[in-house]
């Protein structure tokens, strides 16, 4: 291995930013195809209703309208229902109960915004006008929006397939040993914990442009996808759009995903179908209202948690019951989020001998819920770290020391909930964070704040998460419909420039920079000679895309394997050209050298020799291009400690985050600047969940916070200047020792914020988001309760 100034560990500025900050990015809605028409969807204003009639005659007669297509035609053309790609079995062994989800619904609508028809017209405005002219009559049905309400007897029923709205009743861990731990516990902490529902709000709304070539019977789809190959696979295999070789999916520049662009949605499918139906390329771009109503939402759990301690304050058992709201339909990976991505992390950073969790997934008349930045791990971390803080308060222990007492310290560590932690040093990150925050000085800061009339509090979160969901065989045995490896191809051109094709997809993560840094580090070539190719099923053979912080640990590992093969072949060729033994060849600073001599050949000359093929070793094929598939052996386990300090104005309930320290262990870091950016973004999203964001429905299923007037996204003045640091234990499971950093901030921060607020106000009765009104109410209730005692 060689290295360079632009290699691993260098703070290289992002190469892709030139086009982004100068407005030269090319997003799906920037694409045009000659003759392109525009789609507008007719959507249900009701959360639950029978569609009694649909009259498109007036719309069809409007100027510029090419077609109005309905559910009837979709079904007649054999377009398949949308599916959930991860099978979960209930504890009684029965498979999950999946209700039918058609891309256009002609019978019963189940959430506000569900599409019932589509208009294709020559301009977006005319398509919209005609969509408004489609007359749909509905017979409204009673709706249910809260998951606990949906389970009650007599609740409105959504799907005939799912009796009582129950999708599955799943469990993990050993109930008998857990119950036994509680039977002999010295102390039990019990909490009800709510995890609020969030709207992803990627900066770029979803969009699709579908073009059908009748002569070739071939489709091209440009779309806002985090995983274009998975999109093609699902569109081919399940929705009968076209066989894979007749469908090209391109995910060009994509403006943020956060999970919401993993899934296959009705609109993209309908554009493909409509492009064949009308013979025109069809484009659709969501407006922000459509994004609020139809992008898969995140979180939405009701949980009961109980922690058992022995007399020495060691944890002996953890028992959790969770009801997860999956919305009106099962989105692509929705079933896995509150099960294998959630309950498998309920051990946190702690040695817990017995854990049992029961999860019920429930249909409601709300937008479907699926993976959103963190996907299950934020829910687990919030639960574990709220309970840990509360237990420490109840037994009168310092919350940092209570955690430390229960840390896992020997690795590998097998938890009672599947996960086997491979490496970590939880004391190191806790120590680093405690020192940075000056924990010893907190009491003085609290007293000083009190002198100004402010309530100051401190809160902890020692999170662990799991990235690079794998290996394929294991996830397959747990119900996943796909393998979770990654592919890479390294093409060295005859002039020595290098193209890296990856199955990962960049939609804000900076892969064009970090992946090139890996190549630069490895071959000692300049970044300007390396380009990263992704997001096109015609260029990259196959790939699983980007989510779950997998692109470093899995995607880059595949690149390493391909680079290994290129290097081996190039060395063999260099040895032949320099008439030296292969074992004596080194690659340093972009030059092949023969050890102990002054013989050398620049990288590009070896590349050229591979393509001229005038002088090759016996049996060697011309060219210098290698591919690799990498399937990890385990998840990776980023972990760390976040400490938040807040000051609260008791007159208004307003929380100000006055200090936030994040000590993360991400293993090997390629580009610290990009990692810091990921952590900043993640922390800000987590603080958004803790303080500001809430997808609030009224009892009729109308989304009350359906625009930025009511849905509060975090802004610069809502967050502090973060203080970041890293401690490093490298991951033993992959060649670079990487763990992943994309979601940690969003996973770890909410409990730190809520623990700090509840510390400040002296009341633990607080749900997210802790808006000023909610905090003021909690303070007032706390004082009333105090006065009553």
């Amino acid at each position: 291995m060689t290295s360079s100034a632009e290699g691993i560990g260098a703070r290289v500025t992002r190469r892709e930013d030139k086009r982004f900050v100068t407005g030269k990015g090319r997003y799906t809605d920037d694409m045009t195809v000659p003759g392109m028409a525009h789609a507008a969807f007719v959507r249900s204003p009701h959360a639950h209703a029978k569609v009694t009639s649909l009259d498109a005659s007036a719309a069809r007669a409007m100027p510029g309208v090419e077609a109005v297509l309905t559910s009837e035609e979709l079904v007649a053309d054999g377009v398949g229902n949308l599916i959930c790609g991860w099978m979960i079995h209930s504890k009684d062994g029965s498979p999950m109960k999946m209700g039918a989800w058609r891309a256009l619904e002609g019978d019963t609508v189940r959430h506000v915004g569900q599409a019932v028809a589509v208009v294709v017209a020559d301009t977006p405005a005319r398509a919209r006008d005609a969509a408004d002219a489609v007359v749909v009559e509905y017979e409204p049905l009673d709706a249910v929006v809260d998951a606990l309400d949906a389970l009650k007897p007599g609740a409105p029923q959504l799907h005939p397939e799912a009796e009582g709205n129950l999708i599955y009743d799943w469990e993990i861990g050993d109930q008998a040993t857990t119950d036994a731990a509680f039977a002999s516990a010295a102390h039990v902490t019990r909490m009800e914990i709510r995890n609020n529902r969030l709207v992803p709000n990627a900066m770029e709304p979803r969009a699709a442009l579908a073009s059908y070539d009748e002569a070739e019977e071939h489709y091209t789809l440009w779309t806002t996808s985090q995983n274009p190959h998975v999109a093609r696979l699902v569109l081919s295999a399940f929705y009968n759009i076209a066989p894979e070789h007749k469908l090209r999916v391109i995910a060009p520049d994509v403006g943020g995903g956060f999970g919401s662009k993993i899934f296959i949605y009705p609109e993209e499918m309908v554009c493909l179908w409509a492009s064949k139906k009308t013979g025109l390329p069809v484009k659709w771009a969501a407006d922000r209202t459509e994004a609020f109503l139809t992008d898969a939402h995140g979180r939405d759990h009701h949980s009961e948690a109980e922690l058992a301690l022995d007399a020495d304050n060691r944890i002996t058992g953890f028992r959790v019951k969770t009801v997860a709201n999956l919305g009106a339909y099962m989105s692509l990976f929705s079933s896995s989020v509150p099960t294998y991505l959630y309950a498998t992390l309920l051990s946190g950073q702690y040695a817990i001998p017995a854990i049992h969790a029961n999860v019920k997934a429930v249909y409601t008349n709300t937008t479907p819920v699926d993976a959103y930045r963190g996907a299950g791990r934020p829910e687990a971390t919030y639960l574990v770290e709220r309970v840990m803080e509360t237990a420490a308060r109840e037994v009168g222990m310092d919350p940092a020391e209570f955690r430390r007492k229960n840390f896992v310290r020997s690795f590998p560590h097998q938890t009672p909930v599947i996960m086997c932690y491979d490496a970590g040093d939880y004391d190191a990150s806790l120590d680093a964070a405690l020192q940075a925050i000056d924990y010893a000085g907190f009491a003085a800061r609290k007293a000083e704040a009190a002198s100004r009339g402010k309530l100051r509090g401190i809160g902890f979160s020692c999170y662990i998460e799991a990235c690079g969901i794998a290996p394929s065989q294991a996830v397959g045995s747990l119900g996943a419909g796909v393998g979770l490896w990654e592919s890479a191809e390294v093409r060295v051109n005859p002039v020595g420039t290098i193209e890296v094709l990856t199955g990962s997809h960049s939609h804000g993560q900076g892969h064009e920079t970090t992946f090139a840094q890996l190549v630069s580090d490895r071959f000692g070539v300049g970044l300007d000679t390396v380009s990263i190719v992704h997001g096109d099923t015609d260029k990259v053979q196959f790939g699983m895309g980007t989510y779950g912080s997998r692109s470093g640990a899995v995607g880059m590992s595949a690149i390493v394997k391909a680079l290994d093969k290129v290097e081996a072949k190039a060395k063999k060729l260099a040895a032949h050209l320099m008439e030296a033994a292969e074992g004596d060849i080194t690659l340093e600073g972009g030059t092949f050298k023969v050890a102990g001599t002054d013989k050398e050949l620049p990288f590009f000359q070896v590349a050229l020799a591979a393509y001229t093929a005038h002088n090759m070793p016996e049996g060697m094929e011309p060219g210098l291009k290698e591919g690799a598939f990498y399937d990890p052996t385990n998840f990776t386990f980023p972990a760390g400690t976040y400490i938040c300090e807040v000051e609260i104005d008791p007159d208004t309930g307003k929380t100000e985050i006055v200090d936030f320290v994040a000590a993360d262990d991400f293993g090997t870091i390629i580009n610290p600047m990009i990692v810091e950016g990921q952590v900043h973004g993640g922390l800000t999203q987590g603080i958004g969940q803790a303080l500001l964001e809430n997808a609030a429905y009224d009892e009729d299923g109308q989304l009350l916070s359906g625009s930025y007037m009511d849905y509060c996204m975090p802004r610069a003045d809502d967050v502090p200047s973060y203080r970041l640091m890293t401690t490093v234990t490298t991951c033993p499971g992959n060649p670079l020792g990487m763990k992943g950093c994309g979601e940690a901030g969003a996973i770890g921060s909410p409990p730190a914020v809520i623990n700090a607020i509840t510390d400040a106000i002296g009341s633990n009765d607080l749900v997210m988001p802790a808006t000023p009104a909610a905090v003021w109410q909690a303070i007032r209730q706390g004082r009333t309760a105090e006065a009553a005692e």
Partner: protein
Amino acid sequence: MYETTYHRAESVADAATRLAGAEDGKLLAGGQTLLPTMKQRLAAPSDVIDLTHIADLKGIAETGGGVRIGAATTHAEVAGSEIVKRLLPGLAALAGHIGDPHVRHRGTIGGSLANNDPAADYPSAVLALGAVIHTYTRQLPAEEFFAGMFETALDEGEIITAVEFPAATASAYAKYPNPASRYAMAGVFVARLGDGGVRVAVTGAGQDGVFRHEGMEQALAGNFAAEALDGIAVDADEMLSDIHGSAEYRAHLVTVMAKRAVAACG
């Protein structure tokens, strides 16, 4: 957005003529409410008549006893005006915290008043200071102008030309913003007038839009200090309640903001 015909009016008379000639015309005075509403297809005016290029509607001038602000003057211009900062610092500060910089450089005082959003900032200052609203045809005292949420005394097609504020001995505005929209959840403008009287006007919190709080005014007339407001209750029954805050919370915020405004009067 539906198709519409844009007119750039050259004078108030020209605007009135164009408006009268339109099938369903709307005045554009900055567009910070109208344009988003049109983009969401919640409004579909046949014609939009832009007032912001009419010279007579722009500018800030010191009058005998106060300040006259043209209706098409932007919030940023009010916030930055040396005259306003000297005579009515509370008004300048209010204008400087409306929306964000984009809004402040487009939105105008006349547009804000004609819309009378119950959470807009300007109505509180206009009512607390006892300003006079000048229109193309008449003058309306603030008390008569505001008529509940999004309702004013303006006749169909009546165009605001200017707002005339009397100078105050002291003035200040304290706003608690809605975390999402940053409109006022409770905005209180306190003005101490030349005759020794004190006026307190509240925006954002009341069910009927901007209102004066006489109990606070009387207490402050006796003792112009934040403590004078201790124990003065705001009736929660008359406050708004929504996902951002209960009526009780808003009632409480009104008192808190009133105290902060008094304190800011110095």
